[in-house]
Every structure is written in structure tokens, then in C-alpha cells.
């Protein structure tokens, strides 16, 4: 087994290196997945049927909160990995917990927003525009939810085993995933909400 101590902890074994490359490739597939959802959304975004238009629906306040929470969580996630590289377990855990809480906050705001939409009579069944909107946001939200479960599982492992090759590798891969969700959100913020409000 190759064991190169000049590399960062999460890259040190051959298997770990393969895992990181594999996850980057998987993120490539995820980009295609979200691109398809965006394409569907752009295609259907002016097909309101009898349902509401984005102008009647969107409110900037909640969306700004979501953006603030998720972008900050991405930053704290980066700090967690930085602490991990320095071998500092306690700050790493703290930053991870903050990340998770901000993620949870994002999800809370998103769910409230969905409930408001449905209250206003805008459901996933109302029009093609709303079907594509809910599916795009919902797929992103489902990714965040999965990320929360996954991140929690990794935190428990870091707590249990400390920072070793296995947990460092897992944490690093999780951070890639979390940053990716942030990137997707930036596109949603710009091309769904801001464009819809223009």
C-alpha cells in the first residue's frame, strides 16, 4: 500500500486518493443533473397556466436569509477542514456543528417558504412553472437534507475515532459536497429568484 506522508492526511493512501477523484467525478455527474433541472426550469418558467407568476410569488426577504445561511455554512465548513489540516479536533467539531446548524436553518426557511406558497394556492400541481420550480428547489433541498444526515454521521465518527486517515478523508469529501450545494444555490438565487423578480 502506498503511504506518502508528504501529502495531506486525507490523501495519504491510494484508496483515499481514488475516493477523492471518484467524488469529483460524481460531482461532475451532479452538475449535469442540476443543469438538466435548470434547463427544464428555463423551458417551463413562463408557462404559468392558471397559476401565479414569480412576481406574485417570490419574496426577497426569505431568499436572502437562505442565501446568507447557506453561504456562511460553506465558509464555516471550510474553516472546519482548515482546522482538520492543523490537527485541531475541537475547533473542527465546533465549526462542523455551526455548519450543520446553519444548514438546518436554511432548510427551515425553505420549508416555511414552501408552506407559504402552498397556502397561496401555488402547489406543485398548479402549473408547469411551479412543477419545475418545486422540483428544482426540492432536489437541492433534498441534497441539503441528505448532507445534514451525512455530516452528522461523520461528526460522530470524528468524535469517536479522532482525526485519522479514514475520518479526514470522509470529512474532506463531505466538504466538497457541501461547497457544491452552495454553488448550486448561487445559481438558483441568481437565475430563479433574482431573474424572477426582475
Amino acid at each position, binding site marked *: 500500500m502506498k503511504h506518502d506522508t508528504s501529502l495531506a492526511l486525507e490523501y495519504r493512501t491510494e484508496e483515499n486518493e481514488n475516493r477523492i477523484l*471518484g467524488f469529483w467525478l*460524481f460531482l461532475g455527474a451532479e452538475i*449535469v443533473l442540476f443543469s438538466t433541472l435548470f434547463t427544464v426550469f428555463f423551458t417551463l418558467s413562463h*408557462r*404559468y*397556466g392558471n397559476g401565479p407568476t414569480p412576481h406574485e410569488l417570490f419574496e426577497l426577504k426569505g431568499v436572502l436569509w437562505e442565501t446568507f445561511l447557506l453561504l456562511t455554512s460553506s465558509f464555516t465548513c471550510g474553516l472546519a477542514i482548515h482546522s482538520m489540516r492543523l490537527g485541531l479536533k475541537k475547533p473542527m467539531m465546533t465549526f462542523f456543528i455551526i455548519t450543520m446548524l446553519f444548514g438546518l436553518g436554511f432548510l427551515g426557511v425553505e420549508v416555511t417558504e414552501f408552506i407559504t406558497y402552498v397556502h397561496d394556492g401555488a402547489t*406543485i400541481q*398548479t402549473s408547469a412553472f411551479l412543477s419545475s420550480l418545486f422540483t428544482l428547489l426540492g432536489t437541492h433541498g433534498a441534497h441539503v437534507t441528505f448532507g445534514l*444526515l451525512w455530516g452528522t454521521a461523520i461528526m460522530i465518527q470524528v468524535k469517536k475515532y479522532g482525526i485519522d486517515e479514514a475520518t479526514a478523508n470522509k470529512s474532506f469529501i463531505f466538504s466538497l459536497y457541501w461547497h457544491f450545494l452552495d454553488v448550486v444555490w448561487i445559481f438558483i438565487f441568481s437565475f430563479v429568484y433574482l431573474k424572477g423578480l426582475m
Partner: protein
Amino acid sequence: MKWDEFFVTGEPMIYAADICIVLASLAIIIGLTYFKKWGYLWREWLTTVDHKKIGVMYIISALLMLFRGGVDALLMRTQLAMPNMTLLNAQHYNEIFTTHGVIMILFMAMPFIIGLMNVVVPLQIGARDVAFPRLNAVSFWLFFAGAMLFNISFVIGGSPDAGWSAYFPLASKEFSPSVGNNYYSLALQISGIGTLMTGVNFVVTILKMRAPGMTLMKMPMFTWSILITSVIIMFAFPVLTIALLLMMFDRLFGTQFFTMTNGGMDMLWANLFWVWGHPEVYIVILPAFGIYSEIISTFAKKNLYGYKSMVVSMVAISLLSFLVWAHHFYTMGMGVVGNGFFSIATMAISVPTGVKLFNWLFTLYKGRIEFTTPMLYALAFIPSFTIGGVTGVMLAIASADYQYHNTMFLVAHFHYVLIPGTVFAVIAGMHFWFPKIFGFRLNERIGKIAFWFIAISFQVAFMPLFFLGLNGMTRRMYTYSPETGFGPLNMIATIGAFGLAIGFIFLVYNIYYSFRYSPRDTTGDPWDGRSLEWATHSPVPEYNFAIIPTVDKLDAFWFAKQDKKSLFEGKKIEEIHMPNNTGGPFVLGVVFFFLGFFLVFSWWIPAIISGVVVLILLAMRSFERDHGHHIHVEEIVETEQKLRGDNA
């Protein structure tokens, strides 16, 4: 829901199938119990993470699905043999052409190719396994769960009946109210996720795990084709994932993606389907090109002509494959610019494909050709595939396509591409690599009988369809009147279809016969091969290579034999680290099967429970700390001696 809505009733053929399914299941259970093979099955197969065994399981599944799809084909051909036949009614015919298409492409061609690449690629690059052996097992079990889910549809709930392309609005809840298309969306989704992971797995394997010295341009052509195929899989399959998800939402949750009201757009489905569907065609044909390259070069005893141009043309095909999807619906009214673009892009694909054909011909030129069974398939491929390709260029001409669109001409075209292209290739590949997996060759005499039946019957079955199509017979019509004059050519085609069936029976019989009577190969290199898979023993030991070979050129094994050198010189046997077997992937597959099944019938509570179980299984995997095991040097030396026959 009443029981007679749950089970498909009222059709004698379905009742016969029910009885057969029950009898076959009982026979398997009793057989396994009687011969005390449950433990063997669990330990050696269901929990395996060995790429060779996973490959074998893929190939066995593919052969079973070939049988299922083949029976569908025979039923259709019998129905069409004469005018006004009443073997199948319109509904039953619709279901059968749908399942025939889906099964042959997704559950026969794909797993056959994935099976061969599982067996061969790690050996060709001198690796001990794929990059993620356990993920590989997950891929297989998800594929298998999807395939089983799709196959039970015809006895439970009803098969999908909107064609393999499942166009909307026909495939919507409104026009296809049965659960058939729910099966379609969920079964394809589950197996598609498995395929996507296979793509990621093989890109990492090929990029990171090649033997020392094997640069990208020294890789065997089959490995090259799999690298490119895996990249196409990674970019094409997420589109299918979304298309199927939206289809499921439309059918189960009443969304408005592909509906005719409230802003839905039915052609959006056709676009999404073919954005995946056309690259999919190249996912099944590029590995075939790789297989033929290996076989032609081995049995012409020459290095492959134009290696670099082979690679470049495959890359070109893979890029173009994403730019041609709309040629499947020129008649939808895209306008001149759209049709013109897709027409030219489609014709452009024939250039790199033509380069490849000429390269194979130049490889054969002045070669010392051995007419083995795999080579016969490769030689039959070249002219037949050319007919398929040339008629493809005819179809690519948008203005002329208005004449051929959705006629038997199209059906003939894609069978001319897929059968000599993919099916001949996987059969040839199976004959070629069979001795590597099992340690003996398939019988050549029976193999050649099967070949001649298949090759001739193929022409008899599909050549008439070109003329029927030009005469105006549309595809997917379940019967026709005598006045159309379609009768005689249809009869010829049906005779050809049965000839093909006879050929496949010979093929399967050959496997049985060779298991019993074929002489065992002790060299590990029965064909005088060129690439690394022939440098180890047959059957291949668990760890593939006791010593990882060192490579300095393309076909290094061939040149090492010429120069009487060894690829293993100067290295000692060391302890080998291998992954542990695990039941996790199998259990995950089972749970996914039930998740899909419950969703098909919209049984929400069991579906949610299954979904939670999936998450729990993933979490359990995350918490597991499995470091694999080590095979010690003495054990390796002992195995190697036994395989060499030193102390038999």
C-alpha cells in the same frame, strides 16, 4: 385495489407464464436446498466484491434477459408473419414491443457490456480489482433489482405499453392509466443509478490503477473504449435520472411537466429522453468497437492499424453523440435551421466511424488470419454494420426522413447497427474471454454452427424490413390486411427470426457442452493474445496478478513473448491487500427492489419505510471500519504453483 387488478388476468399466455415462474422458482429453491448450495451461493456470489465474479453475474443476467427479450421478439414476429393474425391483440402487442426494446437495450446490451468490462478491464491494465470493489457490487445489485422489477410487470400490474421511448402524452397517467409506466420510470431509475456508479468507478480505475509504464496511449483499445464509454455514462445518465424523475412526478404526484394543460410541454420529454438516449446508443456501440479491435488484431496477428486515429475517432464520436439527439424527431416541426443542424451533425458521425472501419480493414490486410469463432463474428460485423451505417446516413437527411420516419426502414436500420454492432460483439467477446474466466475454450465446432445460423438468419430477418419500410409499413402496427402486400416479406423476416432463435439455442448449448467436454487450458494464453489479461493464469486467481507486470509499450505481452522476456522480472511476490466480501450491496439491492415496487403501486407507508431502511443501510456502511484482508506470501506462492500445475 382488488387482487384481479394486482395480478394480470384474462390472458392464457400470462397464466402459462405465471405457472412457469412458480415452477422455476420452486425448482431453484428445491435444487439449492437439495444440493446444499445456499451457503456457497451466499459466500461465493451474493456477497462477492471480486470484479470477475460480478462480471460473470452481469453476463448471466444479460443472457437471461436476452432470452426474455428474444421471446418477445418471436411473439411479435409470429404475430406479423401473415396478414390478420390474432395471436396478440393490440394492447398485448404494444406491451411486448415496449418490453422488447427496454429489455434488449437496458437489461441485455448494457449489462453484457458492463459484464465484459468488469471481467477484462482490470486485467488489461494489470490491476488487482476496480477502484471501488464494493461500489461495483452495489452497481450490480441495483441493476439486478431494476431488471427484476421491470420483468415482474407483465404478471403483476401490467407491462408498460407506450414504447421504449415512452413518449408523452401517451405515457401520461391520462392516456396510460395502468401502473405499467410506473414500472418503467422506477425500474430504469434504479438500474440507471447503478450504471452511473459503474461509470465513475471505471473512470477512476482506468485513470489511477494502470500497471507501471502503461501510459494512456499504451492502453489496449478495449480499455480505451471503456474509458470513453464511462465518461459518456457520467454525462448522459444524470439526464435520464431527471427525465425519469419528472415522469414519475407527473404520473404519481400530478405535476405538469409533460401534460397538455396548465403549461406542460410534451416534447420536453422527447428532448430529455434522447439527450440521454442518443449517447446511450454510443455507450453500447463504443465498447463493441473496442472488442472488435482486440479480436481483429489478435487473429490477424498484427498490431492494430492506426491506433491513434482509433482513439481520436472514439473521442470525436463521444462528443458528437451529444449533439444529434433531435434527429429522432425531425417531423416534430423544429424548422429548417434546427433540422439542418442536427442533420449535418448526424452525418458528421459517419466520418470517425468510417475511419474506424478502414482501420480494421487495414489491420486485416496482409494479416495471417485465423478464422476462430470470435473472428467470424468480427468479420461478419464489418459489412453488416456498414449497411446499418449507410442507412443511418440516409435517415439523417432530414427532408428524406419524412418518408422513412417511424417505418420498418428505421427498425431495420437500428437492428443492423445494434445486432452486428453490439450483439455480435458481446458474443464474440464472450467466446474470446471465456477461457480467461473459466479456464477452457467454448467448443469451436458448435460455436461456428451457432455463428452461421445467427449471421445468416440475421440478414434474413432484417433485410426484408428495409423494403417493407420503403413500401410504407409503419413500425409498431400490430397487424395488416392482405391487400397491403406486406405478407410475403414479413413471412421471410419471421423465418429469419426463428433462425436466430435456433442460433442462440446452439450458443447456450455450447456453454453446457464445453463445461462438460472442453479440454482445460493450462497456458492462460489460448489464443496467443497481445494484452495483459493473457499474462496471468486461467482461471484468474482472486488477486489477478501475483506480481504486477511492468509495461513499456502497446501489446507489451505480445512483444515479451517474441523476445522471450518476462513482464514480471526483477520483482518479488509481496503480501496482497484485498477487500472483504460483504452482504451489504445485496441487501441494498433487495430493499431498493421493494422501494421501487411500493412506489409503483403508490403504497406510501411501505415505500417510506423502505426509503428509511435505505438510509439506515447507508449509515451502517458509513460507520463500518472495514480494512479488508491480506493474502500472505506463502499462500500466493502455493496458489501460483497449483495454477501452474507444479504439484498437481
